């Protein structure tokens, strides 16, 4: 009895090892960059972390296939390197059939965030070779902000132009009302002649023409 169990176990192990061949078939390569992501707080890679990975992937398969009872033993890693990268294949529970690449890919894509979260990593530091992360669409507000600033600037400038054009007209009106009393203007000329003394009156430059010659 014991021998039969041992035989079955070793058979399954050898089959599994035979299943996981890097680069061929339904195998995927995964790469961890823990030190890049966490720096000083990086955890060391060991068998426990590998167990977590297999568990997370089994969860992803279960979630995608809606309940098919994948277990930790259905995820078979191989060729682990010091880089912390390895290949893995997924087999169906109970049978030893390999799950095809497409299904694995879609399962991983669906639960990518959960897998990343389990390891405190991101899409860039936990890479699956060949599975491209779906990028988040940038947030675009309803009114582009530049239109708002443009509106503010143009509004201010238009108000300024109108103010500049209207202001002298208003001033002229006020002056007309004030010019009703002639005493002020008489006093001014009186003062001016007293100052000029020797000169006869104010030199009116309108009468000295700048262009003596007829122009072309």
């Amino acid at each position, binding site marked *: 009895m014991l021998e039969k169990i041992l035989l079955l176990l070793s058979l399954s192990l050898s089959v599994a090892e035979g299943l996981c061949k890097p680069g061929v078939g339904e195998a995927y390569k995964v790469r961890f960059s823990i030190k890049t992501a966490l720096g000083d707080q990086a955890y060391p890679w060991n068998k426990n972390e590998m167990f977590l990975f297999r568990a997370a992937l089994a969860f992803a398969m279960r979630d995608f296939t809606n309940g098919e009872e994948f277990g930790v033993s259905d995820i078979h890693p191989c060729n682990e390197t010091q880089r912390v990268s390895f290949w893995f294949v997924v087999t169906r529970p109970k049978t030893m059939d390999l799950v095809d690449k497409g299904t694995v890919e879609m399962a991983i894509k669906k639960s990518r965030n959960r897998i990343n979260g389990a390891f405190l990593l991101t899409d860039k530091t936990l890479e699956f070779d060949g599975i491209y992360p779906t990028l988040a*669409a940038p947030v675009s507000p309803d009114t582009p902000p530049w239109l708002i600033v*443009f509106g503010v600037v143009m509004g201010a400038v238009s108000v300024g*132009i109108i103010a500049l054009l209207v202001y002298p007209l208003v001033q002229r009106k006020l002056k007309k009302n004030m010019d009703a009393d002639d005493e002020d203007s008489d006093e001014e000329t009186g003062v001016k002649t007293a100052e000029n003394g020797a000169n006869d009156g104010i030199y009116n430059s309108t009468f000295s023409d700048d262009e003596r010659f007829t122009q072309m």
Partner: protein
Amino acid sequence: MRLVLPNPGLDLRIPRHEDLERMEKQEAADRPKWDNKAQYILTCVGFCIGLGNVWRFPYLCQSHGGGAFLIPYLILLVLEGMPLLLLEIAIGQRLRKGSVGVWRAISPYLTGVGIGSMLVSFMVALYYNTLIAWIMWYFFNSFQDPLPWTNCPLNENRTGFIPECQQSSTVDYYFYRVTLNASNSIADSGGLQWPIIICLLAAWTVVCICCIRGISTSGKAVYITAILPYIVLAIFLIRGLTLKGALSGIKFLFTPDVEELMNPTTWLDAGAQVFYAFGLAWGGLISFSSYNPVHNNCVQDSVILSVVTGLTSVYAATVTYSIIGFRATEKYDTCINENIRTLLNGFELPEDSITASNYNAALHHLNSSNPDTVFGLDIKTCDMQKLLSEGVEGTGLAFIVFTEAITKMPGSPAWSVLFFIMLLCLGLSTLFGNIEGVVVPLKDFNLFPQKWPHEILTGATCFVSFIICLLFAQPSGIYWLTLFDNFAGSVPLLTIGLFEMIAVVYIYGIDRFNEDIKFMVGRKPSIFWQITWRFISPLIVLVILVFYLVTQAQKQLNYLVWDINSETFPALTSIPYPSWIYAVIFLLAGVPSLVVPMYALCRLIFVSRCC
């Protein structure tokens, strides 16, 4: 006996010294004047300090031997810039007219000089304000976090970015595609870009309101536009110096290479830069100086202006290169980290085995043991020198290099807003001088009825310019702008500057000019000014002009385009201009230069025939 060409009737055309004294006492209200001396100095400083100080001078400095470039720059500043500056300021202050009025008063045959100045000012104003429009677009878009040029837009199935953006860079894509929608060639004009149109509208409206009453409005605006850039540069200097890699940029800028001084192009570029930086021959300085009181010390003003311009150029260059150094260091670090990642992944080594410090040794070791694998990994060489010298001139500096550097700084929207406000102020203050150089000659020509107030004249000029500027709102707009920049703002200015010097020294008469300055300032100008006015400055300008024409005539006219389908993408491709461009170039460069002799000739023929 000095060499002076016969100029009959000069005394009748210009006010005598006694007239000037009388006008000064009476304070004739028909001519505008400055509220105070500070306004005048700030306006002139703002006019001289423009976008070229930020994005042309630092590039010239670095590419022509770093710190050693300051030697030809300062020498030519003193020998070429300062004398011409004093010439324009003094003649404006003496004859109390705009550029056309001044030259017409000296001799009616010389009115062509004024017309040329006006045409050049007008054409430069057109493309300069388009630059302002682009700066405004970036300014409007800086009020969001993250900045829109930080990330590429996603493609349809959201797995990656748009290929055009992926292959070039986010800032390149934002500038050439989102902002300009650049076409493949100058002939390819498909429709108008409406974001550019409304930014042009904003730009021309702002210019209009600032210049609407001449110097009574622009004189107030310069308090902000002339002072703010200095404050922002100081803020950027402090920020820049605290960033990693800033000092490598400054070192790169100022490392002297004395051998460059032997190269004649260094001296030519220095001379040309001094000439353009001072805003000479545009007519704006003459106009501004004509509003000065008669006894204003113009000699002192020209020295102050030269010193301020020179110092500001060096100051702006330091700030620019500290930011460039930061960006280059960031890119270099990213490049090295990428390579380290590729090596680690390719050789399956543990993460910390290769760091930035042992990268070179590790690469060498791996290359010697497994050269084929290393070759297959396609490691890119990270060249710090190349990163420091890429795209650091012209629009490339502001819209590509600087915007990229800003995205890497914490608090990017604030820095972006500050940077583009600074560029706006720099550009606007130069534009005030330009508009002055266009509107005042139009007034002098009496083309419009005298009753029309200054406001309507400025408004009409701005409106017409806006309509013509729609040429730059096309997808091929950037190529038209480069064309204008290269041809409208180069040869005509040198020609007109040369004619100005000849006119004042040999037609107006250097003796008379000396007497005028003695009357205005109290002292006859020293021997330095005499020698530079009579021989050195005209000679320098003539040499630069001749060399420029010779080099331009020899090479085939090419221009750079943004072409997705070309092999050199993402670098710009160089293609030749279509043949009809030569007609446009003649219009831009030839007409303002030739209007001087043509006008004199026409007047000679027609007036002498009829009278």
